[in-house]
């Protein structure tokens, strides 16, 4: 037995030496990355339609400059697809290194397009020290983006989940608030012209249709598989009668639709509608503080839950400042950064981290955030429903256009 004892102890020693070596190797790799990133300029291509997000990115840039000497330039996009187009143009022109885009804020269809075309650098997540805080079990959208495995080619940044916003000055009784697709139809019948959704050619508009589909199907599991003509016709059969009944009750009788979520939020502010939707759970609270919505707005979700996804940052394959970009991605995952982003005085984005993986001090950061009556509670948000396969969204949009685009 003493022989076995010694053997086991030797093995344990070897194991701990080995893991220490691996740890040292990873830290060494990260140190090399930090050293190489010093002095680089990272061109962070991110949608710039929101002042608060722009301020946050500017703050992140100044922090990175102070800590690691990395310059961050926020390339302001009207649409993420602009950056994707630019990388494609560079690839067409043969520029395989020294590209002008270093980091892109994207998710869903844009991520899919880039990963499929081989336009991304990676895998990067194993190299980032802060990735250990990320929740990969309960927040599955951090590793599976619209049923495509991320496989480390993009770094999670913020969570999004479909949330509905209503004006409590108009819907005075919380029991009136529709908590399902069927209830929404009933409410619309009683209040014609007071609810709408963005044009389904827009991301959020298509998501409204997806959400309604989730509500009306008996079994949502086929949505995780690619859609075929047969399965699409069968599964969306309950959606169209519901929508046909809803459409004449919509704002402008369903002939006109706001172009995007921001335009629809403006309609709520103008008093033209009473209910709107958004992908940012804290949208109501953030907008109230920014003066874009009246203080009487509140948030709600459907009782069965709503769709959620993750926004990522990804590095193009030809980036000129890959190390600097990795530093920025890592910084965005830091608990203090995630907490700051979650505050409604800033951008109010939900964090991608796992509370169980944080230290008590780090967890306390999240407890100290600004409260707001317009924020949904974590109980209300629940566990997000996974995004269906991208083919469902494309087909829903096409079918909607075929039926209602005259």
């Amino acid at each position, binding site marked *: 037995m003493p022989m076995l004892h010694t053997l086991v102890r030797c093995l344990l020693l070897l194991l701990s030496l080995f893991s220490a070596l691996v740890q040292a190797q990873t830290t060494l790799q990260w140190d090399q990355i930090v050293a190489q990133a010093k002095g680089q300029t990272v061109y962070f291509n991110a949608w*710039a*339609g929101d002042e608060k997000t722009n301020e946050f990115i500017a703050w992140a840039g100044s922090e990175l400059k102070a800590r690691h000497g990395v310059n961050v330039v926020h390339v302001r*996009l009207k649409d993420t697809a602009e950056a994707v*187009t630019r990388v494609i143009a560079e690839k067409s022109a043969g520029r395989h290194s020294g590209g002008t885009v270093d980091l892109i804020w994207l998710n869903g269809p844009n991520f899919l397009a880039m990963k499929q075309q081989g336009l991304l650098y990676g895998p990067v997540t194993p190299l980032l020290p802060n990735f250990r805080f990320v929740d990969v079990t309960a927040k599955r959208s951090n590793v599976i983006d619209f049923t495509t495995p991320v496989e480390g080619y993009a770094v999670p940044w913020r969570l999004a989940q479909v949330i509905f916003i209503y004006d409590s000055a108009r819907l005075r009784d919380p029991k009136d608030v529709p908590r399902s697709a069927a209830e929404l139809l009933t409410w619309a019948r009683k209040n014609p012209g007071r609810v709408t959704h963005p044009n389904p050619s827009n991301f959020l508009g298509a998501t409204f249709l997806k959400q309604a589909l989730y509500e009306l199907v008996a079994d949502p599991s086929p949505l995780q598989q690619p859609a075929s003509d047969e399965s699409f016709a069968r599964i969306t059969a309950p959606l169209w009668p519901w929508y046909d009944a809803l459409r004449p009750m919509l704002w402008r009788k369903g002939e*006109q639709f706001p172009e995007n979520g921001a335009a629809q939020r403006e309609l709520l502010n103008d008093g033209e509608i009473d209910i709107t939707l958004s992908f940012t759970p804290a949208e109501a609270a953030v907008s109230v503080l920014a003066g874009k919505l009246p203080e009487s707005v509140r948030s709600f979700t459907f009782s069965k839950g709503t769709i959620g996804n993750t926004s990522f940052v990804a590095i193009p394959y030809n980036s000129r400042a890959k190390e600097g970009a990795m530093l920025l991605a890592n910084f965005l995952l830091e608990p203090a950064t995630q907490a700051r982003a979650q505050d409604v005085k800033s951008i109010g984005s939900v964090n991608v981290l796992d509370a169980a993986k944080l230290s008590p001090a780090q967890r306390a950061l999240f407890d100290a955030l600004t409260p707001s009556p317009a924020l949904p509670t974590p109980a209300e948000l629940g566990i997000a429903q996974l995004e269906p396969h991208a083919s469902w969204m494309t087909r829903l949009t096409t079918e909607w256009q075929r039926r209602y685009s005259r």
Partner: protein
Amino acid sequence: MHLLRHAPLLTVTAFAGPVVAGLAGTLLPAFGVLPAIGGESLSLNGWRELLRFPGFATSLQLTVMTGWLATLLAVFITFAVAAVLHQRHAVRRLANLISPLLAIPHSALAIGFAFLIAPSGWIARLVSPGLSGWTLPPDVGSVGHPSGGALVACLLLKEVPYLLLMLLGALNQVPAKAHTDAARALGYTPALAFFKIVLPQVYPQMRLPILAVLAFSLSVVDVALILGPGNPPTLAVLAVRWFGDPDVRLYFQAAAAATLLLLLVLASIAAWLLLERFAARAGRRWVMRGGRRSGVPAFATLGSGVGAALFTMAAGAMLGMGVWSFAARWRFPQSLPPSFTLSNWERQFGDLQRPALTTLWVGFAATAIALGLTLACLENETGATRLQRRDAPSASLALLYIPLLVPQVAFLFGAQVLLIRFDLDATLAAVVWSHLSFVLPYLFLSLADPWRAFDSRYARTALSLGASRARVFWRIKLPILLKPILIACGVAFAVSVGLYLPTVFAGSGRVATLTTEAVTLSAGADRRVIGTWALLQAAFPFAAFLLAAWLPRLLYARRRGLA
């Protein structure tokens, strides 16, 4: 001068490259060729998808109707306003008044106009709840109405001032006053005299601006996005949507839509020129008949009434944005914001210094280069030794107008690939070069006819007195034509300030101007921010137009007829 003979070739070469590349970048994908995303062989799939798109027929019909209606109305209103005012003292002040309207970028004006006419907009707020009894906005369509009415109205807001300005410039070159006085002595009213006598003389100079307006109305994107119907939108908006879609396979049908739009514009121009012939024949008979009583004065008064209404609406749109830029919160049905604040301006101030300087430099450089090239080409054409007026622009210069006809999105992707291949993208020079493609046609268009209408007797007299050609150019031609030159530069500068897609494509997003920043911020739909940036965007070209209006007056305070 030998050097001048190369001017047209130089100009065309500077633009033929990216234009042809840009066009190739549109035509090839329309027929299925785009290797970067797997399109290897010719195919008609793009066209098939375009024709199969639900609502394609409605979209095409909408494009044609709104484009033609906007152009026809703009032309009639312009002529009506000119007929009523052209002999009054007010006409000089009119030119100064309408110049600021040209300075406002399309998107800013469209958003301001949208706020004005929306059911929850300013007009509704002013009459609610007092006059109208509305506590909630009524559910009626105005902005985005499927008929395209809001789109046509907003296009008129910019097109009428532009055509009017061109017309006033052209009137300077024709003995309008003398002819009108003679007509009045014979018993015609001033309005009738304008239509029968002055208009036929100035119309050739108006032809190019009108065609540019036609092309623009058919292919406009910003205004159609904000005010036009969305379901389905116009062809141009469809193309932009598809080009911007993350699914790159839509490029093919986007390119097909852009090509169809190009063909539509060319067909419309041909149709307009044909219509001109008929109108000319009918018009000549009408003029020869010599009737002194007709419905024309009434029509002119009506038209100018509409013109005045348009001007009021445009001013109201600008004012609305100004009020928004100082507003804290403003909800329906308040007529004015209950509280004002400077914080909107304070917040934006830090962000705006660099873009403002960039806008200034790029606009200045693009205008200066365009002016140099234009003057060289024009002088080569109608130089002091060529004493005959040339009626048609040389064929090679027709290429200059292509940037005005091809929808920007389609043209620019191909140009961007070209820039990247030569490692020239993301530089200020690339942005100036891309602006040049759009600034040059407008400058040439604004300057060409006043230049060609220059009375060659001045030049001949100077030459016979012993001046050299260069001296004639610098001491006679330029001073006399200073006002049209400055107006043309003002227009060119305004065009440069308002350009969005060319700056984004050529600058690869690295070069930020006031317009790129404003358009990105407008995606967030906060009217306070939009109001702030819209005012800033309008300030620079406004200043340029002020200069164009005041400088001749200052310099020629003692010379009548030049200021």
